[in-house]
Protein backbone atom coordinates (compact mmCIF):
# COMPACT_ATOMS: atom_id res chain seq x y z
CA UNK A 1 0.00 0.00 0.00
CA UNK A 2 1.37 3.40 -0.86
CA UNK A 3 0.51 6.36 1.27
CA UNK A 4 1.52 9.93 0.69
CA UNK A 5 3.47 11.56 3.47
CA UNK A 6 1.21 13.62 5.67
CA UNK A 7 1.08 17.18 4.50
CA UNK A 8 3.27 19.41 6.69
CA UNK A 9 0.52 21.97 6.83
CA UNK A 10 -1.88 19.51 8.33
CA UNK A 11 -5.43 18.96 7.24
CA UNK A 12 -6.66 22.41 7.80
CA UNK A 13 -6.99 24.26 4.56
CA UNK A 14 -9.33 26.96 3.29
CA UNK A 15 -11.79 28.76 5.48
CA UNK A 16 -10.69 31.36 7.95
CA UNK A 17 -11.13 29.39 11.13
CA UNK A 18 -8.97 26.70 9.61
CA UNK A 19 -6.27 29.23 8.90
CA UNK A 20 -6.42 30.35 12.48
CA UNK A 21 -5.92 26.82 13.60
CA UNK A 22 -3.02 26.35 11.25
CA UNK A 23 -1.44 29.51 12.62
CA UNK A 24 -1.89 28.01 16.04
CA UNK A 25 -0.03 24.89 15.05
CA UNK A 26 2.87 26.78 13.56
CA UNK A 27 3.03 29.12 16.52
CA UNK A 28 3.05 26.15 18.85
CA UNK A 29 5.80 24.57 16.83
CA UNK A 30 7.90 27.71 16.97
CA UNK A 31 7.21 28.09 20.64
CA UNK A 32 8.44 24.61 21.35
CA UNK A 33 11.41 24.95 19.05
CA UNK A 34 9.91 22.55 16.55
CA UNK A 35 11.31 24.23 13.49
CA UNK A 36 11.33 21.34 11.07
CA UNK A 37 8.07 20.91 9.20
CA UNK A 38 8.80 17.19 9.03
CA UNK A 39 8.48 16.91 12.78
CA UNK A 40 5.25 18.83 12.69
CA UNK A 41 4.02 16.72 9.83
CA UNK A 42 4.59 13.65 11.87
CA UNK A 43 2.77 15.19 14.76
CA UNK A 44 -0.27 15.83 12.67
CA UNK A 45 -1.22 12.42 11.31
CA UNK A 46 -4.73 13.33 10.26
CA UNK A 47 -7.61 10.95 10.48
CA UNK A 48 -11.04 12.11 9.33
CA UNK A 49 -14.13 10.14 10.31
CA UNK A 50 -17.38 10.70 8.39
CA UNK A 51 -20.51 9.93 10.42
CA UNK A 52 -21.03 10.14 14.17
CA UNK A 53 -23.14 7.02 14.72
CA UNK A 54 -22.23 3.90 16.68
CA UNK A 55 -19.48 3.18 14.16
CA UNK A 56 -17.96 6.61 13.51
CA UNK A 57 -18.29 8.05 17.01
CA UNK A 58 -16.70 4.95 18.54
CA UNK A 59 -13.90 5.02 15.99
CA UNK A 60 -13.06 8.69 16.53
CA UNK A 61 -12.85 8.15 20.26
CA UNK A 62 -10.90 4.91 19.98
CA UNK A 63 -8.38 6.54 17.65
CA UNK A 64 -7.54 9.14 20.30
CA UNK A 65 -7.25 6.36 22.84
CA UNK A 66 -5.05 4.23 20.62
CA UNK A 67 -2.75 7.16 19.84
CA UNK A 68 -3.33 10.58 21.43
CA UNK A 69 -0.91 12.02 18.86
CA UNK A 70 -3.40 11.53 16.07
CA UNK A 71 -5.42 14.53 14.98
CA UNK A 72 -8.94 13.22 14.65
CA UNK A 73 -11.85 15.10 13.09
CA UNK A 74 -15.37 13.70 13.28
CA UNK A 75 -17.65 15.00 10.54
CA UNK A 76 -21.31 14.86 11.58
CA UNK A 77 -23.98 17.45 10.76
CA UNK A 78 -26.42 16.46 13.49
CA UNK A 79 -26.30 18.22 16.83
CA UNK A 80 -27.48 15.07 18.57
CA UNK A 81 -27.48 11.45 17.60
CA UNK A 82 -30.77 9.55 17.79
CA UNK A 83 -30.06 5.88 18.43
CA UNK A 84 -32.18 3.22 16.73
CA UNK A 85 -31.74 0.41 19.30
CA UNK A 86 -34.67 0.59 21.73
CA UNK A 87 -36.57 2.92 19.37
CA UNK A 88 -39.12 0.12 18.90
CA UNK A 89 -40.08 0.76 22.53
CA UNK A 90 -40.77 4.37 21.57
CA UNK A 91 -43.26 3.15 18.94
CA UNK A 92 -45.02 1.09 21.57
CA UNK A 93 -45.32 4.13 23.85
CA UNK A 94 -42.96 2.61 26.43
CA UNK A 95 -40.10 5.07 25.98
CA UNK A 96 -39.63 8.65 24.79
CA UNK A 97 -37.55 9.66 21.78
CA UNK A 98 -35.49 12.01 23.98
CA UNK A 99 -34.13 8.96 25.78
CA UNK A 100 -32.61 7.93 22.43
CA UNK A 101 -30.66 11.20 22.06
CA UNK A 102 -26.92 11.54 22.65
CA UNK A 103 -24.63 14.55 22.20
CA UNK A 104 -21.02 14.85 21.13
CA UNK A 105 -19.58 16.75 24.12
CA UNK A 106 -17.92 13.64 25.57
CA UNK A 107 -16.24 12.87 22.27
CA UNK A 108 -15.03 16.45 21.94
CA UNK A 109 -13.67 16.32 25.49
CA UNK A 110 -11.73 13.20 24.49
CA UNK A 111 -9.76 15.39 22.06
CA UNK A 112 -11.73 14.84 18.87
CA UNK A 113 -12.53 17.88 16.73
CA UNK A 114 -16.16 17.87 15.65
CA UNK A 115 -16.98 19.37 12.26
CA UNK A 116 -20.73 19.99 12.39
CA UNK A 117 -21.21 19.64 8.64
CA UNK A 118 -22.10 16.97 6.14
CA UNK A 119 -19.26 15.56 4.06
CA UNK A 120 -20.26 16.21 0.45
CA UNK A 121 -17.28 14.99 -1.59
CA UNK A 122 -14.13 12.92 -1.25
CA UNK A 123 -11.06 13.20 -3.46
CA UNK A 124 -9.18 9.94 -2.86
CA UNK A 125 -6.26 11.03 -5.06
CA UNK A 126 -5.49 14.11 -3.01
CA UNK A 127 -6.85 12.53 0.14
CA UNK A 128 -9.21 15.36 0.83
CA UNK A 129 -12.80 15.58 2.08
CA UNK A 130 -15.05 18.52 1.26
CA UNK A 131 -17.70 19.59 3.73
CA UNK A 132 -21.04 21.29 3.09
CA UNK A 133 -19.63 24.73 3.94
CA UNK A 134 -16.74 24.33 1.49
CA UNK A 135 -14.12 23.54 4.13
CA UNK A 136 -11.63 20.92 2.98
CA UNK A 137 -9.93 18.43 5.26
CA UNK A 138 -6.81 16.53 4.27
CA UNK A 139 -6.43 13.03 5.59
CA UNK A 140 -3.88 10.30 5.87
CA UNK A 141 -6.67 7.85 6.68
CA UNK A 142 -10.38 8.40 6.11
CA UNK A 143 -13.04 6.41 7.93
CA UNK A 144 -16.42 6.31 6.18
CA UNK A 145 -19.26 5.43 8.56
CA UNK A 146 -22.46 6.97 7.16
CA UNK A 147 -24.83 4.13 8.06
CA UNK A 148 -27.58 3.37 5.56
CA UNK A 149 -29.68 5.28 3.08
CA UNK A 150 -33.21 4.05 2.52
CA UNK A 151 -33.82 3.24 -1.12
CA UNK A 152 -36.72 5.24 -2.43
CA UNK A 153 -36.30 3.70 -5.88
CA UNK A 154 -36.87 0.08 -4.89
CA UNK A 155 -40.62 -0.32 -4.31
CA UNK A 156 -42.81 1.39 -6.94
CA UNK A 157 -44.87 4.06 -5.20
CA UNK A 158 -42.60 4.26 -2.17
CA UNK A 159 -40.70 7.54 -2.30
CA UNK A 160 -39.88 10.15 0.32
CA UNK A 161 -43.36 11.65 0.10
CA UNK A 162 -44.93 8.22 0.56
CA UNK A 163 -42.85 7.78 3.73
CA UNK A 164 -44.85 10.64 5.26
CA UNK A 165 -47.98 8.47 4.89
CA UNK A 166 -46.39 5.04 5.30
CA UNK A 167 -43.45 5.66 7.64
CA UNK A 168 -40.36 3.45 7.56
CA UNK A 169 -39.21 4.55 11.02
CA UNK A 170 -35.90 2.84 10.17
CA UNK A 171 -33.95 5.90 11.25
CA UNK A 172 -34.86 7.09 14.72
CA UNK A 173 -36.41 10.56 14.69
CA UNK A 174 -39.56 12.19 13.31
CA UNK A 175 -40.41 8.96 11.47
CA UNK A 176 -40.49 7.08 14.78
CA UNK A 177 -42.87 9.62 16.26
CA UNK A 178 -45.05 9.62 13.15
CA UNK A 179 -45.52 5.86 13.27
CA UNK A 180 -46.25 6.03 16.99
CA UNK A 181 -48.93 8.69 16.44
CA UNK A 182 -50.50 6.63 13.68
CA UNK A 183 -50.68 3.59 15.94
CA UNK A 184 -52.20 5.67 18.71
CA UNK A 185 -54.79 7.16 16.33
CA UNK A 186 -55.77 3.81 14.84
CA UNK A 187 -59.19 2.50 15.96
CA UNK A 188 -59.47 -0.83 17.74
CA UNK A 189 -60.07 -3.55 15.18
CA UNK A 190 -57.71 -1.83 12.72
CA UNK A 191 -55.03 -3.55 10.69
CA UNK A 192 -51.31 -2.74 10.85
CA UNK A 193 -49.24 -3.95 7.88
CA UNK A 194 -45.45 -4.08 7.92
CA UNK A 195 -43.29 -4.56 4.81
CA UNK A 196 -39.86 -6.08 5.51
CA UNK A 197 -36.99 -6.23 2.97
CA UNK A 198 -34.73 -9.06 1.87
CA UNK A 199 -31.19 -9.34 3.28
CA UNK A 200 -28.91 -7.52 3.78
CA UNK A 201 -30.40 -4.62 5.70
CA UNK A 202 -29.90 -2.74 8.97
CA UNK A 203 -30.64 -4.86 12.05
CA UNK A 204 -31.87 -8.27 10.81
CA UNK A 205 -33.98 -9.04 13.93
CA UNK A 206 -35.24 -5.42 14.18
CA UNK A 207 -38.48 -5.79 12.17
CA UNK A 208 -39.55 -8.78 14.27
CA UNK A 209 -38.79 -7.00 17.54
CA UNK A 210 -40.86 -4.14 16.16
CA UNK A 211 -43.74 -6.47 15.30
CA UNK A 212 -43.53 -7.88 18.83
CA UNK A 213 -43.66 -4.51 20.54
CA UNK A 214 -46.42 -3.19 18.26
CA UNK A 215 -48.33 -6.38 19.12
CA UNK A 216 -47.73 -5.65 22.80
CA UNK A 217 -49.20 -2.18 22.30
CA UNK A 218 -52.18 -3.51 20.36
CA UNK A 219 -52.86 -6.28 22.86
CA UNK A 220 -52.84 -3.73 25.66
CA UNK A 221 -54.77 -0.90 23.98
CA UNK A 222 -56.54 -2.29 20.89
CA UNK A 223 -57.12 -5.99 21.49
CA UNK A 224 -59.22 -6.50 18.34
CA UNK A 225 -56.49 -5.16 16.02
CA UNK A 226 -54.31 -7.31 13.74
CA UNK A 227 -50.72 -7.12 12.52
CA UNK A 228 -49.59 -8.56 9.20
CA UNK A 229 -45.89 -8.81 8.29
CA UNK A 230 -45.24 -8.99 4.54
CA UNK A 231 -41.72 -10.37 4.28
CA UNK A 232 -39.50 -10.46 1.19
CA UNK A 233 -37.73 -13.57 2.55
CA UNK A 234 -38.61 -17.04 3.77
CA UNK A 235 -36.49 -17.04 6.92
CA UNK A 236 -35.47 -14.49 9.48
CA UNK A 237 -33.18 -13.97 12.45
CA UNK A 238 -34.13 -15.74 15.70
CA UNK A 239 -37.24 -16.95 13.86
CA UNK A 240 -38.15 -19.91 16.05
CA UNK A 241 -37.71 -17.86 19.19
CA UNK A 242 -39.87 -15.04 17.87
CA UNK A 243 -42.56 -17.39 16.60
CA UNK A 244 -42.62 -19.25 19.90
CA UNK A 245 -42.92 -16.00 21.82
CA UNK A 246 -45.63 -14.65 19.49
CA UNK A 247 -47.75 -17.78 19.90
CA UNK A 248 -47.24 -17.73 23.66
CA UNK A 249 -47.90 -14.06 24.26
CA UNK A 250 -49.97 -12.67 21.41
CA UNK A 251 -52.04 -15.63 20.23
CA UNK A 252 -53.00 -15.06 16.61
CA UNK A 253 -52.49 -11.30 16.61
CA UNK A 254 -49.38 -11.42 14.39
CA UNK A 255 -49.55 -13.02 10.95
CA UNK A 256 -46.22 -13.48 9.14
CA UNK A 257 -46.40 -13.87 5.36
CA UNK A 258 -43.11 -15.17 3.90
CA UNK A 259 -41.84 -14.61 0.36
CA UNK A 260 -43.14 -17.91 -0.97
CA UNK A 261 -46.64 -17.13 0.29
CA UNK A 262 -46.78 -13.71 -1.34
CA UNK A 263 -44.78 -11.70 1.18
CA UNK A 264 -42.86 -9.56 -1.28
CA UNK A 265 -44.35 -6.09 -1.67
CA UNK A 266 -44.19 -5.10 -5.33
CA UNK A 267 -45.95 -1.75 -5.14
CA UNK A 268 -47.56 0.59 -2.64
CA UNK A 269 -50.24 3.24 -2.97
CA UNK A 270 -49.86 5.75 -0.17
CA UNK A 271 -53.10 7.50 -1.20
CA UNK A 272 -55.24 4.48 -0.32
CA UNK A 273 -52.72 2.93 2.10
CA UNK A 274 -52.52 -0.23 0.01
CA UNK A 275 -49.61 -2.66 -0.23
CA UNK A 276 -49.59 -4.84 -3.32
CA UNK A 277 -47.92 -8.26 -3.48
CA UNK A 278 -47.74 -10.90 -6.21
CA UNK A 279 -50.60 -12.69 -4.46
CA UNK A 280 -52.99 -9.79 -3.90
CA UNK A 281 -53.23 -6.55 -2.03
CA UNK A 282 -53.50 -5.52 1.60
CA UNK A 283 -55.36 -2.54 2.92
CA UNK A 284 -53.68 -1.04 5.97
CA UNK A 285 -54.94 1.28 8.67
CA UNK A 286 -51.30 1.81 9.56
CA UNK A 287 -48.56 0.84 7.12
CA UNK A 288 -44.89 0.55 8.14
CA UNK A 289 -42.81 0.09 5.00
CA UNK A 290 -39.16 -0.75 5.63
CA UNK A 291 -37.61 -0.43 2.18
CA UNK A 292 -34.36 -1.99 0.95
CA UNK A 293 -31.24 -0.03 1.87
CA UNK A 294 -27.74 0.80 0.72
CA UNK A 295 -24.66 2.42 2.23
CA UNK A 296 -25.06 6.15 2.98
CA UNK A 297 -24.64 8.25 -0.18
CA UNK A 298 -21.16 9.55 0.64
CA UNK A 299 -19.84 5.98 0.29
CA UNK A 300 -20.78 5.90 -3.39
CA UNK A 301 -19.44 9.43 -3.86
CA UNK A 302 -16.12 8.33 -2.39
CA UNK A 303 -16.06 5.33 -4.71
CA UNK A 304 -16.05 2.75 -1.93
CA UNK A 305 -19.52 1.24 -2.63
CA UNK A 306 -19.77 -1.56 -5.18
CA UNK A 307 -22.68 -2.56 -7.44
CA UNK A 308 -24.59 -3.97 -4.45
CA UNK A 309 -24.65 -0.52 -2.87
CA UNK A 310 -22.50 -1.71 0.05
CA UNK A 311 -18.76 -1.40 0.69
CA UNK A 312 -16.31 -4.30 0.39
CA UNK A 313 -13.50 -4.15 2.95
CA UNK A 314 -10.36 -5.89 4.11
CA UNK A 315 -11.39 -7.70 7.32
CA UNK A 316 -8.15 -6.87 9.15
CA UNK A 317 -7.92 -3.12 8.51
CA UNK A 318 -11.46 -2.35 7.32
CA UNK A 319 -9.78 -0.57 4.45
CA UNK A 320 -11.87 -0.45 1.28
CA UNK A 321 -10.84 -3.02 -1.29
CA UNK A 322 -11.75 -0.42 -3.93
CA UNK A 323 -9.99 2.75 -2.74
CA UNK A 324 -6.78 2.82 -0.66
CA UNK A 325 -6.67 5.01 2.43
CA UNK A 326 -10.43 4.83 3.03
CA UNK A 327 -11.78 2.52 5.74
CA UNK A 328 -15.46 1.60 5.99
CA UNK A 329 -17.15 0.43 9.18
CA UNK A 330 -20.67 -0.13 10.50
CA UNK A 331 -23.82 -0.65 8.47
CA UNK A 332 -22.23 0.68 5.26
CA UNK A 333 -19.58 -2.06 5.17
CA UNK A 334 -19.91 -5.59 3.86
CA UNK A 335 -19.21 -7.19 7.22
CA UNK A 336 -19.20 -10.78 5.99
CA UNK A 337 -20.97 -12.87 8.61
CA UNK A 338 -21.36 -9.89 10.95
CA UNK A 339 -24.88 -8.43 10.88
CA UNK A 340 -25.53 -4.73 10.49
CA UNK A 341 -26.00 -3.86 14.15
CA UNK A 342 -24.94 -1.15 16.56
CA UNK A 343 -22.97 -3.80 18.46
CA UNK A 344 -21.07 -4.82 15.30
CA UNK A 345 -20.52 -1.19 14.34
CA UNK A 346 -18.99 -0.51 17.76
CA UNK A 347 -16.75 -3.59 17.65
CA UNK A 348 -15.62 -2.88 14.08
CA UNK A 349 -14.86 0.72 14.97
CA UNK A 350 -12.48 -0.28 17.75
CA UNK A 351 -10.69 -2.83 15.56
CA UNK A 352 -10.43 -0.26 12.76
CA UNK A 353 -8.95 2.32 15.13
CA UNK A 354 -6.33 -0.20 16.30
CA UNK A 355 -5.46 -0.99 12.69
CA UNK A 356 -5.14 2.68 11.72
CA UNK A 357 -2.91 3.41 14.73
CA UNK A 358 -0.61 0.63 13.53
CA UNK A 359 -0.65 1.76 9.91
CA UNK A 360 0.25 5.31 10.92
CA UNK A 361 3.30 3.91 12.72
CA UNK A 362 3.98 1.81 9.63
CA UNK A 363 3.51 -1.39 11.60
CA UNK A 364 1.50 -4.42 10.54
CA UNK A 365 -1.96 -4.31 12.14
CA UNK A 366 -2.94 -7.23 14.38
CA UNK A 367 -5.60 -9.73 13.29
CA UNK A 368 -8.78 -8.71 15.08
CA UNK A 369 -11.40 -10.80 16.77
CA UNK A 370 -14.84 -9.31 17.18
CA UNK A 371 -18.05 -10.03 19.05
CA UNK A 372 -21.62 -9.20 18.11
CA UNK A 373 -24.66 -9.64 20.29
CA UNK A 374 -28.13 -8.46 19.30
CA UNK A 375 -30.80 -8.50 21.93
CA UNK A 376 -34.46 -8.32 20.93
CA UNK A 377 -37.53 -7.79 23.05
CA UNK A 378 -40.43 -10.13 22.31
CA UNK A 379 -42.24 -8.24 25.09
CA UNK A 380 -40.92 -5.58 27.47
CA UNK A 381 -39.85 -8.23 30.00
CA UNK A 382 -39.07 -10.99 27.50
CA UNK A 383 -35.62 -10.77 25.91
CA UNK A 384 -33.84 -13.07 23.46
CA UNK A 385 -30.42 -12.75 21.86
CA UNK A 386 -28.17 -13.85 19.06
CA UNK A 387 -24.41 -13.76 19.57
CA UNK A 388 -21.38 -14.46 17.41
CA UNK A 389 -17.59 -14.24 17.52
CA UNK A 390 -15.85 -13.27 14.28
CA UNK A 391 -12.39 -13.36 12.75
CA UNK A 392 -10.99 -12.71 9.26
CA UNK A 393 -11.08 -15.73 6.96
CA UNK A 394 -10.64 -15.82 3.19
CA UNK A 395 -10.92 -12.06 2.96
CA UNK A 396 -14.15 -11.77 4.94
CA UNK A 397 -15.22 -11.61 8.55
CA UNK A 398 -16.33 -15.16 9.30
CA UNK A 399 -18.00 -16.70 12.31
CA UNK A 400 -15.71 -18.60 14.66
CA UNK A 401 -17.09 -22.11 14.61
CA UNK A 402 -18.42 -23.58 17.80
CA UNK A 403 -19.21 -20.18 19.27
CA UNK A 404 -22.28 -17.99 19.09
CA UNK A 405 -25.88 -18.89 18.47
CA UNK A 406 -29.26 -17.89 19.81
CA UNK A 407 -30.93 -18.09 23.22
CA UNK A 408 -32.33 -21.57 24.01
CA UNK A 409 -35.86 -22.37 22.88
CA UNK A 410 -36.57 -23.93 26.25
CA UNK A 411 -36.06 -21.37 28.96
CA UNK A 412 -37.81 -20.25 32.11
CA UNK A 413 -39.57 -16.88 32.18
CA UNK A 414 -36.84 -15.73 34.55
CA UNK A 415 -34.22 -16.27 31.82
CA UNK A 416 -36.24 -14.19 29.34
CA UNK A 417 -36.58 -11.55 32.01
CA UNK A 418 -32.85 -11.60 32.68
CA UNK A 419 -32.12 -11.16 28.97
CA UNK A 420 -34.53 -8.20 28.79
CA UNK A 421 -32.61 -6.62 31.67
CA UNK A 422 -29.27 -7.40 29.98
CA UNK A 423 -30.57 -5.80 26.79
CA UNK A 424 -31.23 -2.56 28.59
CA UNK A 425 -27.89 -2.79 30.38
CA UNK A 426 -26.16 -3.23 27.03
CA UNK A 427 -27.83 -0.11 25.61
CA UNK A 428 -26.81 1.95 28.61
CA UNK A 429 -23.22 0.66 28.75
CA UNK A 430 -22.69 0.95 25.00
CA UNK A 431 -24.07 4.47 24.64
CA UNK A 432 -22.12 5.55 27.74
CA UNK A 433 -18.92 4.18 26.30
CA UNK A 434 -19.45 5.91 22.95
CA UNK A 435 -21.06 9.21 23.89
CA UNK A 436 -20.61 9.54 27.68
Amino acid sequence: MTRPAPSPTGSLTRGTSRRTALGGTLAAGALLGLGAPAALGQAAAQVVVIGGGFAGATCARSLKRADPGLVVTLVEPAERYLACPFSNLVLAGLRELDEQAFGYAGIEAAGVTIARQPAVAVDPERRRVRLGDGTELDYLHLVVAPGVDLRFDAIPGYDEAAAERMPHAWKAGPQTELLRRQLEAMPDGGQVVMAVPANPFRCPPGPYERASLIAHYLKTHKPRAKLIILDAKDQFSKQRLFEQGWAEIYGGLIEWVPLSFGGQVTEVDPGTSTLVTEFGSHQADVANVIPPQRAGAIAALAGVADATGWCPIDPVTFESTLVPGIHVIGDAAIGGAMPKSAFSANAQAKACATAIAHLVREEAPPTPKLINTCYSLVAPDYGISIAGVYAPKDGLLAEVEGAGGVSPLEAAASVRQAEAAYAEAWFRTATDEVFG
Partner: protein
Amino acid sequence: MSPQRRLALGCLMAAVVAMAGTGPARAEPPPGAASCSGCHGPAGSEGPVPSLLGRPAAETAAAMAAFRTGQREATVMDRIARGFTDDETRAIADWLADQGDQP
Protein backbone atom coordinates in the same frame (compact mmCIF):
# COMPACT_ATOMS: atom_id res chain seq x y z
CA MET B 1 -13.63 28.50 24.46
CA SER B 2 -14.14 29.37 20.79
CA PRO B 3 -13.87 26.52 18.30
CA GLN B 4 -10.83 28.20 16.76
CA ARG B 5 -9.02 28.41 20.05
CA ARG B 6 -9.98 24.86 20.87
CA LEU B 7 -8.64 23.73 17.51
CA ALA B 8 -5.43 25.64 18.03
CA LEU B 9 -5.04 24.18 21.48
CA GLY B 10 -5.71 20.72 20.09
CA CYS B 11 -2.90 21.21 17.61
CA LEU B 12 -0.61 22.50 20.32
CA MET B 13 -1.33 19.44 22.39
CA ALA B 14 -0.74 17.22 19.39
CA ALA B 15 2.64 18.87 18.89
CA VAL B 16 3.58 18.32 22.51
CA VAL B 17 2.59 14.69 22.30
CA ALA B 18 4.61 14.31 19.14
CA MET B 19 7.65 15.63 20.96
CA ALA B 20 7.17 12.96 23.54
CA GLY B 21 6.95 10.45 20.73
CA THR B 22 3.87 9.38 18.85
CA GLY B 23 2.76 5.95 19.85
CA PRO B 24 0.19 3.93 21.67
CA ALA B 25 -1.15 5.61 24.77
CA ARG B 26 -1.53 2.47 26.79
CA ALA B 27 -1.19 -1.24 26.25
CA GLU B 28 -3.30 -2.14 23.29
CA PRO B 29 -6.21 -4.52 23.85
CA PRO B 30 -5.44 -8.04 22.57
CA PRO B 31 -7.81 -9.45 19.92
CA GLY B 32 -11.37 -9.65 21.27
CA ALA B 33 -10.77 -7.66 24.45
CA ALA B 34 -12.18 -4.41 23.07
CA SER B 35 -15.56 -6.08 22.46
CA CYS B 36 -16.09 -7.02 26.13
CA SER B 37 -16.72 -3.38 27.09
CA GLY B 38 -19.85 -3.39 24.95
CA CYS B 39 -21.53 -5.06 27.92
CA HIS B 40 -19.05 -4.87 30.80
CA GLY B 41 -18.76 -1.22 31.80
CA PRO B 42 -15.94 0.76 33.36
CA ALA B 43 -14.95 0.32 37.01
CA GLY B 44 -17.67 1.55 39.32
CA SER B 45 -20.41 1.30 36.71
CA GLU B 46 -23.78 0.11 37.89
CA GLY B 47 -26.07 -2.47 36.40
CA PRO B 48 -26.45 -6.20 36.20
CA VAL B 49 -23.25 -6.90 34.23
CA PRO B 50 -20.15 -6.37 36.40
CA SER B 51 -17.07 -4.41 35.34
CA LEU B 52 -14.06 -6.60 34.57
CA LEU B 53 -11.42 -3.89 34.78
CA GLY B 54 -8.86 -4.61 37.47
CA ARG B 55 -10.27 -8.05 38.22
CA PRO B 56 -7.51 -10.61 38.88
CA ALA B 57 -6.66 -12.33 35.59
CA ALA B 58 -6.97 -15.80 37.07
CA GLU B 59 -10.55 -15.08 38.12
CA THR B 60 -11.61 -13.86 34.68
CA ALA B 61 -9.84 -16.75 32.95
CA ALA B 62 -11.44 -19.30 35.28
CA ALA B 63 -14.91 -17.84 34.73
CA MET B 64 -14.39 -17.90 30.96
CA ALA B 65 -13.26 -21.54 31.11
CA ALA B 66 -16.33 -22.46 33.15
CA PHE B 67 -18.61 -20.63 30.71
CA ARG B 68 -16.94 -22.41 27.81
CA THR B 69 -17.51 -25.90 29.21
CA GLY B 70 -21.02 -25.05 30.38
CA GLN B 71 -20.01 -25.73 33.97
CA ARG B 72 -21.17 -22.24 34.82
CA GLU B 73 -24.67 -21.20 33.81
CA ALA B 74 -25.02 -18.25 31.54
CA THR B 75 -27.47 -16.44 29.31
CA VAL B 76 -24.84 -15.36 26.79
CA MET B 77 -21.29 -15.83 28.10
CA ASP B 78 -21.23 -19.51 27.13
CA ARG B 79 -21.81 -18.54 23.50
CA ILE B 80 -19.13 -15.84 23.67
CA ALA B 81 -16.49 -17.77 25.66
CA ARG B 82 -16.51 -20.62 23.14
CA GLY B 83 -15.14 -18.21 20.53
CA PHE B 84 -11.79 -17.82 22.30
CA THR B 85 -8.89 -20.22 22.82
CA ASP B 86 -7.17 -20.59 26.18
CA ASP B 87 -4.30 -18.38 25.04
CA GLU B 88 -6.61 -15.68 23.74
CA THR B 89 -8.66 -15.78 26.93
CA ARG B 90 -5.55 -15.47 29.06
CA ALA B 91 -4.32 -12.47 27.07
CA ILE B 92 -7.72 -10.79 27.43
CA ALA B 93 -7.85 -11.57 31.16
CA ASP B 94 -4.34 -10.15 31.67
CA TRP B 95 -5.18 -6.99 29.79
CA LEU B 96 -8.45 -6.47 31.67
CA ALA B 97 -6.59 -6.94 34.98
CA ASP B 98 -4.13 -4.21 33.95
CA GLN B 99 -6.91 -1.73 33.22
CA GLY B 100 -7.90 -1.38 36.86
CA ASP B 101 -6.62 2.16 37.22
CA GLN B 102 -8.10 3.34 33.91
CA PRO B 103 -11.30 5.33 33.78
